[in-house]
């Protein structure tokens, strides 16, 4: 049982490491490209890892971790809004507001439990379901919708695959807290002497590492894989024209079009 616990724990470590790398990748690119959405996503993912590290390595309580989960979920929702729906302010702000409200409820319930208020567990994890699902399924849906829009367009294939990977793996991680319904109350999460608790821990760890693999691959796709996915795709390199040459070409094409009508 202890061996299995260590395997699951190593899955969680991989999840944290990949998420830190993706977070840093977002931050660097956000700064370089002056894209605020990437900076926000980067900070969100890094903060989630800080929460996990604080809880697991430094034994800071679950409430500490939940603060960082709250930051991550809110920032992820903001990222989805700024990346996919910037022109839909009402829907975007509504979803962000909803996630913030659910996050605050989570924090209140966790701290209430820590202060000894009983019978809050199932209420908390029941509300954790919409909290997690809205955050990640919104991103999954946004990415899948964009993919459907673009799949027949002249876009490099690796970019289409990136959309699909984001959609699939965001959808998968949105089920992350479902195993918690089976966690025996009064048992430590991942208690290797309790098979049910260990199974719950294992299921969560497998979902997390699966997400890390797919999400990491989507964003940190190596060049050789991009090239392989782009095989057969003709990259367009436009002939260098001066401003005047370009305008002459455009005027000629428009004139030909008018004459042909």
């Amino acid at each position, binding site marked *: 049982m202890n061996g299995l616990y260590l395997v699951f724990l190593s899955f969680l470590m991989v999840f944290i490491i990949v998420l830190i790398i993706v977070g840093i*990748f977002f931050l660097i*690119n956000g700064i*370089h*490209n*002056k*894209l605020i*959405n*990437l900076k926000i996503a980067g900070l969100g993912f890094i903060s989630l890892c800080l929460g996990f590290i604080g809880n697991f390595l430094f034994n800071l309580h679950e409430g500490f971790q939940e603060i960082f989960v709250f930051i991550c979920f809110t920032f992820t929702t903001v990222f989805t809004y700024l*990346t*996919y729906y*910037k*022109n839909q302010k009402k829907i975007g702000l509504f979803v962000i507001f909803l996630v913030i409200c659910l996050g605050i409820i989570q924090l209140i319930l966790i701290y209430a439990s820590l202060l000894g208020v009983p019978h809050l567990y199932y209420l908390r994890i029941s509300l954790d379901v919409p909290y997690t699902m809205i955050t990640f399924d919104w991103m999954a849906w*946004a*990415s899948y919708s*964009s993919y459907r*829009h*673009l799949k027949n*367009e*002249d*876009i*490099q294939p690796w*970019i289409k695959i*990136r*959309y699909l990977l*984001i959609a699939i793996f965001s959808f998968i991680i949105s089920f992350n807290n479902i195993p918690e319904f089976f966690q025996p109350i009064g048992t430590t999460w991942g208690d290797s002497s309790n098979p049910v608790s260990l199974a719950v821990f294992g299921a969560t760890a497998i979902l997390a590492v699966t997400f890390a693999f797919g999400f990491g691959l989507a*964003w940190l796709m190596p060049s050789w894989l991009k090239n392989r996915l782009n095989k057969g795709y003709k990259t*367009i390199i*436009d*002939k260098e*024209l001066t*401003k005047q040459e*370009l*305008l002459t*070409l*455009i*005027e000629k*094409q*428009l004139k030909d*079009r008018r004459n042909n009508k």
Partner: protein
Amino acid sequence: MEIIKYLGSKLSESIELSLPAGRGLIKLAIKDELGPFHPINQLNYEKLVGVIKNSLKKRLVDLDVPNIEDVLDYLLDELNSNQSLITIAGI
């Protein structure tokens, strides 16, 4: 940049230009709006909306293209639907 290529192809489609000419016109409008030295990887949604509404519109007026408002609305729709290309294809 994929978003420029995409908007260029949509512009080509709507005013019946060749693909390189459509892309070229978008690039020209970007230079008009943001200056010749603006890094292409630092284009964002708001800047592209500005490019379409201002400098591209002016270019299309100068070229005497018919139904300019329809063309611009179509491009703005396309940009709104596929704004994620700026980020997803940009890094």
